[in-house]
C-alpha cells in the first residue's frame, strides 16, 4: 500500500493540473482528472451513514496522494475524525493517517500533535491500537528528533496499562522501535525524561496475555537490532520464558537468549542448585539445546538454527551435543559409532556379527544419571532424528556452521552426518552432503564411513549423486583401499547411470590429483598390466576406461614415478585424451616427450596483461575513427572486429568484453556501410529494389542492440545509453529508407510521429546522461527538435539524413565486469539415430538438461523453443523448480519438454534450443508520473522479444499414426 501511495505523486488537492507544455512536446494537451482528494472532502461531508463514509475512504485509499497535498488531506481526515462516532470509520481514518505520514517527501511532525490529541480521547481499543501504529509510522519517519521520540515513548508508556492486548502490543512495538536505553539522554525541555525502556518492556515479560509477552520479547529484540545494548539482567527473565505455555513466546525467548549470549558471552552465571558457575554463553547454549526437544516444531527449528551461530561455546559443551550417554538396564553402553571406530582401529572389518558386542559394559551409578537437565547432552542427536524434516535440516545446517569453526567438532560430527546420508527425505540427504562438502577441509573419512557415503551413489536422484560427486572431489581419503573402493563405486554408478559421465570424470580428476601417492600402488591393477605379458588394449571409447585414465593421469601429474608403470597404449591414449578432453587431463612430463603445453598453463598470469592491453589499444584505435575516410574506417572496423572475436575465443576471461565491443563495432560498421550505399545519391524512385541492404542493416543493428542490452550481465547505465543511441540511429535509418522507398506521404506521418516520440522518450529516460553524448546524433537531433516538430515528414527525413551522416562515432565505455550469457544443452545430445516414436496426438516427454552461464534471473527469462520441420515453433516456459544453482553465475536447467504432432510418414528432426526472453521495461527506470490507465507516448517501453543463446540441438522424432 505504501509503495502504491508513493508511486503516484500526481494529485493536487483542489486544483486542476495541466501538464506543462515544455515537458511533453506532443501536440495533444494532457488533462488530468479533477483531484480525488477534493472529492474526498465532498464525499465525506455527503456521507449519510458510517458505512457510506467507510466506502468512500476505502475508495480513496486505493489512490495515492502526492507529497504537497498530504497535509491538506490529513486535515480533512482529522476534521472528520473528530465528528465521527462510528469506530470502524475512525479506525480507517487512523490507518490512513499512518499511510499518509509514510509518504515520501512529507514531514509528519505537523500531524503528531493532533494524533496524540485524538489518542487521549479515544475509547475504542481497536482504534487506539491503530492510532499507536500511526504514531509508530510517524516516529520512525523522524528518527533524529529526540523530543518527539521521547514524547511518543511517553504516550506508549501511558497506554501500556490498557486492558486490550492489541493496544499493549502496539505500545510495546512502539517502545521497541523508538525507545532508548540510556537514562542520561538529553533531558527534554518539557520535562519528559527518557525512561528506561528496557525495564518497562521487561515488566511485560510476565503479562497475562501470551501475545503481549511475545510482543515484549520482540520489542526487546527490536531494541537490540537498533544497536542498543541490552542489559544482562534480562537473561534470567528470558530463561523463565523458555517454559512458557505458548510456542510463539518460547520461540521468541530462544532468540532473546541467543542475543544476550552473543552480547555477554564471557560473563559468569551460577548453576542453580549447585555452587558452580559457568560462562553465560555455555549456559545459554545448554538452554537452547534443551529447546531442541521442545514440544512445538517451530521452536525446535528456531533453536536448532540458532545453535549453529554460537561459536564461542567451549568445546566441552559442544561435544556433549553429540553424546547421548546410552545405557541399557542401567549399564553404560557404547554407541554404534564408538563401536565402529573401535572395530576399525583394531583392524577388524566385520561389525555387529559377534553376539553381544553391543552388550552394555560397566554399571552406572543410578544417582549420577541425569535424564533431563543434562543441558547440551545429545541435542544434535535429537535434532537429527526429529520427526519434522525442517528440524533435521536446521540441525544439519547448525552442525555445518559449528564444524566449520571447530575442526575437532567436525571430526566428531562426521559419523552423524554420514548417517544423515540415509535420511528418508531427499532434501535432508542433499543438505547433509553439501554440509559435508563444506567441512571437508577439516576431515578425513575412515573406510567404514566412506563405505556408507559411497552407498549413496546408487541413489536414484540425480541431484544427490551429483552432490556426492562434488563431495568426493574435495574429500580426503586415508587409505589406498579407500581410493579403490571409491573408484569401484563410481564405475558402478557410471554403469548404472551413464548420464553421470561428465560429473564422474570430473570427480575422478580431483580424486586423482588429491591422492597421488594412494593411487600409485593401484596403477598396475587399474590398468591391468602384467609384468611379463602384454594385455589386450582396452577400448578407448569406454567411459569407464576413460574414467580410470582420468584418475591415473591426474595422479601422475604430481607423481613423476608413475608414468614408468604405463604401457605403450596408455601413452597413446594419453595423447588422445589430452587432446579430446583437455579440461580433464593435465599436461604430464612424459619421458621422451616435449612439454608442449605445460609452459602455457604455468605462465598464464603474465599473459593476461598484454591481451588486456591489446584489447584496449585496438578499441582506442577505432574510437579515433571519425577522422578517417569511410573506406579506411570500414577496413579498420572489419579488422578490429575480427581481432576482437579471435581474442574472445583465446582468452576466456576477456571473452565478455571482447564480444561486447565487437558487437558494438559491428553495429557501427553496418551503419557506415548502409550510409555508403549508392541509393542516397540517386533520385528516390529509381532505387526501389536496392534499398534491401540498408533496411536489412537497420534491422540487424536493432537485433544486435537487443543482444547487447540483454545478453550480457554487468551492463551499466552508461552502456545502456550508448546502446539505445545506436538503436535510435537504426530507427532513423529505417525511417529514411522507408521514406525513400514508399510513395505517398500518409504512412510517413505515422512513422515520423512515432520516431519523434521515441526521441522524446530517449531524452526523458537518459536526461542525466545526455551530457556524455556531445556532438552525437541525438544531441543534434534534440537541438533541432522544435523545428522537427513543426516540419513535414519529407523535411524531417531530409534533416535526419544529413544528421545521420554527420554524427560522430560514440565511444563505448567498457564496464568493469561483463559476461555474455551462454547456454549449452547437454541433453538431448543430438547424436541418436533412433527416432523417438510416439503416437500422434499424444505427447512424448523429452528430457532437457542444459547449463546456463551468467544468466540473471533464469527462472523468468530462459525459455525452451522447439522448432518442428513444418516451421511450427513452440515456446515452453520451464518451471522455476527446474532451475538449480550449483555455483555463482551458473545455473542448471533440468526439465521435461512435451512434444506432440500429427502423424508423419517418416522420422524427422525437430530443433530444440534455449531462448533468452527480454523485456525492455525491466531496464528503464520507472516514471512516477505515469499512471496506470494512461496511455503514455512511449511506444517503446514494452518491447519484448527473445534471443536464441544456445546452439540448437536436433532430436529425431517420429509421431506414428494412431492404430485403431
Amino acid at each position, binding site marked *: 500500500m505504501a509503495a502504491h501511495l508513493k508511486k503516484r505523486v500526481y494529485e493536487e488537492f483542489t486544483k486542476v493540473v495541466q501538464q506543462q507544455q515544455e515537458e511533453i512536446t506532443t501536440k495533444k494537451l494532457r488533462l488530468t482528472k479533477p483531484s480525488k482528494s477534493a472529492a474526498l472532502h465532498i464525499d465525506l461531508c455527503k456521507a449519510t451513514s458510517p458505512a457510506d463514509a467507510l466506502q468512500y475512504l476505502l475508495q480513496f485509499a486505493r489512490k495515492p496522494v502526492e507529497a504537497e497535498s498530504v497535509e491538506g488531506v490529513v486535515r480533512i481526515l482529522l476534521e472528520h475524525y473528530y465528528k465521527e462516532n462510528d469506530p470502524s470509520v475512525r479506525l480507517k481514518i487512523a490507518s490512513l493517517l499512518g499511510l499518509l505520514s509514510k509518504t515520501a517527501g512529507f514531514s509528519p511532525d505537523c500531524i503528531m500533535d493532533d494524533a496524540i490529541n485524538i489518542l487521549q480521547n479515544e475509547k475504542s481499543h481497536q482504534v487506539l491500537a491503530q492510532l499507536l501504529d500511526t504514531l509508530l509510522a510517524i516516529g520512525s519517519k523522524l528518527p533524529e528528533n529526540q523530543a518527539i521520540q521521547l514524547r511518543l515513548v511517553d504516550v506508549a508508556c501511558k497506554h501500556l496499562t490498557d*486492558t486490550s492486548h492489541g493496544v499493549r502490543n502496539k505500545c510495546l512495538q512502539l517502545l521497541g522501535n523508538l525507545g532508548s536505553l540510556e537514562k542520561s539522554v538529553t533531558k527534554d525541555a518539557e520535562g519528559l525524561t527518557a525512561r528506561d525502556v528496557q525495564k518497562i518492556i521487561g515488566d511485560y515479560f510476565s503479562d497475562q496475555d501470551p501475545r503481549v509477552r511475545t510482543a515484549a520479547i520482540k520489542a526487546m529484540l527490536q531494541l537490540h537490532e537498533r544497536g542498543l545494548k541490552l542489559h544482562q539482567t534480562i537473561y534470567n527473565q528470558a530463561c523463565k520464558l523458555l517454559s512458557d505455555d505458548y510456542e510463539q513466546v518460547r520461540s521468541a525467548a530462544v532468540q532473546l537468549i541467543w542475543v544476550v549470549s552473543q552480547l555477554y558471552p564471557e560473563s559468569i552465571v551460577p548453576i542453580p542448585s549447585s555452587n558452580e558457575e559457568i560462562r553465560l554463553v555455555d549456559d545459554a547454549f545448554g538452554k537452547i539445546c534443551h529447546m531442541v526437544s521442545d514440544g512445538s516444531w517451530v521452536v525446535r527449528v528456531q533453536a536448532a538454527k540458532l545453535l549453529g551461530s554460537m561459536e564461542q561455546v567451549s568445546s566441552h559443551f559442544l561435544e556433549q551435543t553429540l553424546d547421548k550417554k546410552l545405557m541399557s538396564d542401567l549399564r553404560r553402553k557404547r*554407541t554404534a559409532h564408538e563401536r565402529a571406530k573401535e572395530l576399525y582401529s583394531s583392524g577388524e572389518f566385520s561389525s555387529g556379527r559377534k553376539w553381544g558386542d553391543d552388550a552394555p559394559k560397566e554399571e552406572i551409578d543410578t544417582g549420577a544419571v541425569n535424564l*533431563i537437565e543434562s543441558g547440551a547432552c*545429545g541435542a544434535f542427536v535429537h535434532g*537429527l*532424528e526429529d520427526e*519434522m524434516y525442517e528440524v533435521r535440516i536446521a540441525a544439519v545446517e547448525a552442525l555445518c556452521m559449528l564444524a566449520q569453526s571447530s575442526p575437532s567438532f567436525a571430526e566428531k560430527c562426521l559419523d552423524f552426518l554420514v548417517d544423515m546420508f540415509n535420511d528418508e527425505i531427499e532434501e535432508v540427504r542433499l543438505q547433509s552432503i553439501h554440509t559435508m562438502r563444506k567441512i571437508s577441509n577439516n576431515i578425513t573419512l575412515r573406510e567404514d564411513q566412506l563405505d556408507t557415503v559411497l552407498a549413496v551413489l*546408487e541413489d536414484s536422484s540425480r541431484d544427490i549423486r551429483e552432490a556426492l560427486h562434488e563431495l568426493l572431489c574435495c574429500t580426503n581419503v586415508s587409505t589406498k583401499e579407500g581410493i579403490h573402493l571409491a573408484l569401484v563405486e563410481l564405475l558402478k554408478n557410471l554403469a548404472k547411470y551413464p548420464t553421470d559421465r561428465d560429473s564422474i570424470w570430473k570427480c575422478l580428476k580431483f580424486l586423482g590429483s588429491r591422492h597421488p601417492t594412494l593411487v600409485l600402488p593401484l596403477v598396475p591393477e587399474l590398468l591391468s598390466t602384467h609384468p611379463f605379458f602384454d594385455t589386450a588394449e582396452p577400448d578407448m571409447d569406454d567411459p569407464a576406461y576413460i574414467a580410470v585414465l582420468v584418475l591415473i593421469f591426474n595422479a601422475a601429474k604430481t607423481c613423476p614415478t608413475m608414468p614408468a608403470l604405463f604401457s605403450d597404449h596408455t601413452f597413446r591414449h594419453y595423447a588422445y585424451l589430452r587432446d579430446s578432453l583437455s579440461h580433464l587431463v593435465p599436461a604430464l612430463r612424459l619421458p621422451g616427450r616435449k612439454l608442449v603445453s605445460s609452459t602455457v598453463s604455468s605462465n598464464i598470469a603474465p599473459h593476461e596483461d598484454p591481451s588486456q592491453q591489446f584489447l584496449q589499444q585496438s578499441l582506442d584505435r577505432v574510437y579515433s575513427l571519425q577522422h578517417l575516410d569511410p573506406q579506411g574506417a570500414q577496413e579498420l572496423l572489419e579488422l578490429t572486429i575480427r581481432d576482437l572475436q579471435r581474442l574472445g575465443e583465446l582468452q576466456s576471461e576477456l571473452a565478455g568484453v571482447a564480444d561486447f565491443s565487437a558487437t558494438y563495432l559491428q553495429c557501427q560498421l553496418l551503419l557506415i556501410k548502409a550510409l555508403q550505399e549508392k541509393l542516397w545519391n540517386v533520385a528516390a524512385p529509381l532505387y526501389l529494389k536496392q534499398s534491401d541492404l540498408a533496411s536489412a542493416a537497420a534491422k540487424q543493428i536493432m537485433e544486435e542492440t537487443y543482444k547487447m542490452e540483454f545478453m550480457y550481465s554487468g551492463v551499466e547505465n552508461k552502456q545502456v545509453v550508448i546502446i539505445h543511441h545506436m538503436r535510435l540511429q537504426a530507427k532513423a535509418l529505417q525511417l529514411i529508407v522507408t521514406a525513400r522507398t514508399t510513395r505517398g506521404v500518409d504512412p510517413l506521418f505515422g512513422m515520423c510521429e512515432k520516431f519523434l516520440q521515441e526521441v522524446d522518450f530517449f531524452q526523458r529516460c537518459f536526461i542525466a546522461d545526455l551530457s556524455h553524448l556531445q556532438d552525437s546524433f541525438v544531441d543534434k537531433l534534440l537541438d533541432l527538435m522544435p523545428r522537427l516538430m513543426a516540419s513535414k515528414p519529407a523535411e524531417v527525413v531530409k534533416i535526419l539524413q544529413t544528421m545521420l551522416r554527420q554524427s560522430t562515432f560514440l565511444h563505448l565505455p567498457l564496464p568493469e565486469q561483463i559476461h555474455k550469457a551462454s547456454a549449452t544443452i547437454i541433453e538431448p545430445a543430438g547424436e541418436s539415430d533412433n527416432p523417438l516414436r510416439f503416437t500422434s496426438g499424444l505427447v512424448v516427454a523429452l528430457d532437457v538438461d542444459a547449463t546456463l552461464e551468467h544468466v540473471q534471473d533464469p527462472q523468468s527469462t530462459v525459455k525452451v523453443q522447439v522448432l518442428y520441420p513444418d516451421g511450427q515453433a513452440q515456446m515452453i516456459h520451464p518451471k522455476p523448480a527446474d532451475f538449480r544453482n550449483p555455483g555463482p553465475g551458473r545455473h542448471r536447467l533440468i526439465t521435461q519438454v512435451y512434444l506432440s504432432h500429427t502423424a508423419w510418414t517418416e522420422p524427422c528432426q525437430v530443433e530444440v534450443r534455449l531462448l533468452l526472453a527480454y523485456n525492455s521495461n525491466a531496464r528503464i527506470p520507472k516514471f512516477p508520473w505515469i499512471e496506470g490507465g494512461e496511455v503514455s507516448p512511449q511506444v517503446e517501453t514494452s518491447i519484448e522479444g527473445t534471443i536464441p543463446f544456445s546452439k540448437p540441438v536436433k532430436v529425431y522424432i517420429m509421431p506414428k499414426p494412431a492404430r485403431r
Partner: protein
Amino acid sequence: MSPHRVFPLPVWAGQDVGRSCILVSIAGKNVMLDCGMHMGYNDDRRFPDFSYITQSGRLTDFLDCVIISHFHLDHCGALPYFSEMVGYDGPIYMTHPTQAICPILLEDYRKIAVDKKGEANFFTSQMIKDCMKKVVAVHLHQTVQVDDELEIKAYYAGHVLGAAMFQIKVGSESVVYTGDYNMTPDRHLGAAWIDKCRPNLLITESTYATTIRDSKRCRERDFLKKVHETVERGGKVLIPVFALGRAQELCILLETFWERMNLKVPIYFSTGLTEKANHYYKLFITWTNQKIRKTFVQRNMFEFKHIKAFDRAFADNPGPMVVFATPGMLHAGQSLQIFRKWAGNEKNMVIMPGYCVQGTVGHKILSGQRKLEMEGRQVLEVKMQVEYMSFSAHADAKGIMQLVGQAEPESVLLVHGEAKKMEFLRQKIEQEFRVSCYMPANGETVTLPTSPSIPVGISLGLLKREMAQGLLPEAKKPRLLHGTLIMKDSSFRLVSSEQALKELGLTEHQLRFTCRVHLQDTRKEQETALRVYSHLKNTLKDHCVQHLPDGSVTVESILIQAAAHSEDPGTKVLLVSWTYQDEELGSFLTALLKNGLPQAPS
C-alpha cells in the same frame, strides 16, 4: 459433593509387561483403560481377573466407559471376553485405525487358540463382531463427551498405527493414560506429542525405564547390514514380528534398501493377515509420518514391490531369503515352525526386533540359551545366529522424561514395566520434576488426593473495578480482591458488597473509627485546622485534601475536626474519624498527626 480423588486400580498391568488393564476412578467416574491379555500363558491367567472390579452387580453399571489405546493384543486381547463373556454393554472408545485393525488381530488370535490348540471356552467370531459393535471411534484431538461430566480426548502416540494417548477429564480433574508410545519417529510413524494439559495424574508405560537408546539411524543401518551380509553369504534370515506395527516399519526399511541396492533375494511375509493390514496402512495415511504423508500421492509406500506372500513350502527352498513371520516372540505359530527348521544351520540368522516376554522361546534364545526343550521332550540345538535389534517402538527413559516434561502432571504413575527398572525411573521423576510418582503392583490400588479447584462466578463490574486498581500486569500471581462470596444453590458467586447487601436485603452498617489527637497549639481552632490542612496537603500529594467552610478538614472520606481542649487552652484536640473501608489511610493519618505539626512559618 463428589469425592475429589483420582485412584487407578491396576487390575493386571502393574509391574509387569503383558496384560494392560487399568481401572481409574476419577471424581466418581470409573473408566477402564485397555483390556489386554498375557502372551505367556495359555490358561485363565492370560485374561485379567474381572471379578476384581465388582463382586456384585453388572459391570455396565459400574464402568462408565472402556478405552483401548492401540490394537496390540496385550492391550485389547481380552476385549471380546470382557464384553461378551463377562458382560459389558457400555461404550468402548478407540481410534479409527484401531477399530479397523483390532478385529483382524482378535480373529487371528482366536484361530490360533481354538483351531490350532483346540481350546474350549474361548470367544467366538461372532463375539468379536458383537464386541466391535459397541466401539465408538474417536479422532485425534477430538473431545468426546461420554456423559455430562466425563470427557475424553485422544493424542497421537506413535508406537503403532492408530496408537493414542487418552486424556480423561471430569470437571477440573484429569488423568492422562499414555498406552504405549514412542518419542522418536521411525520410518512409518511420527513421534508422540501431548500439549501442556497439566493432568492430576499421568499414567505412563515404562517398558524401557532404564535404557537410553542410540540413534535410530545406527539401528537401521545395523539391521540392514546384518540382513545384507547374511543374504550375501547365502543364509536365510528369519524376522519374527507381530503381524502389525514393527513389521510394517521393517518392511518399508527393507523394501527401500532392496530397491536402492538392486537386490533380487526374495522377501516373504508369512501370514495372510498382512494384505488386510497393509490395506489399512494405505488407508490411514494421515496417521503415518511426514515422509509417507508427503509422498503418497506419487507412490503409497505401503505398496510393496519386493515383498511377497509366504507359503509354507518356501521354507525348505534352497538359497537365501528373508522371511517375516508371526508371532513376534517365537512362542507359537509360523515363526516357531520356521525357526525350528532353520535353527540348525549356522549360516542362518534370526533377528528379534522387539521385546520378548519371559517364558517365550524368544526370551530364552536372547538370554543365550543354546539348547531348547520343545514340546514332546525333544531338544533343539540352536546354531543359527541370534541377533537382537531394538526396534521396539517404546519410549526410552529420556523419552518418558520428555513426555512427563511436556504434560507437566501433578503426579505420575508407572505401569507396564519391570519393577526393578521402574524403581529407577520413579526416583528420577521424583528427583527431577519434584512430583510424586507411584508404581503399584498388580491389583494394588493407589489413591491420590487432589485439590479440586472450585469455579466461582464473579460479577463483571467488580472484576473491572478491581482490575482498574491494580495497574501492573502480574500474570498468575494471586491478588487481593474485596468482595462478598455468596454461596447459594450450590453455586458460588463473588459480588461487590453493595450488590450483596442489595440481594440479601440487608442494610449496611456504618463502622467508623474515631480517634483524638492532642496537639500543642495555642492558636485558635480555625487556625489549627488550617495548619493541619496545609500540612496534610503537603504530605499527601495524591489524595484529595479539602478544607470545608465549617472549619473541618477532609481527606477523601476522613473527617478531621479541631476543637479546643476543655481544660488546657494550649492544647487542641483533633477529632479524626474514618470508616472501616478507609482503615489503612485513617491509621496512617493518625500516626502522622501524632507526630505533631511542623513549625508554622509564622
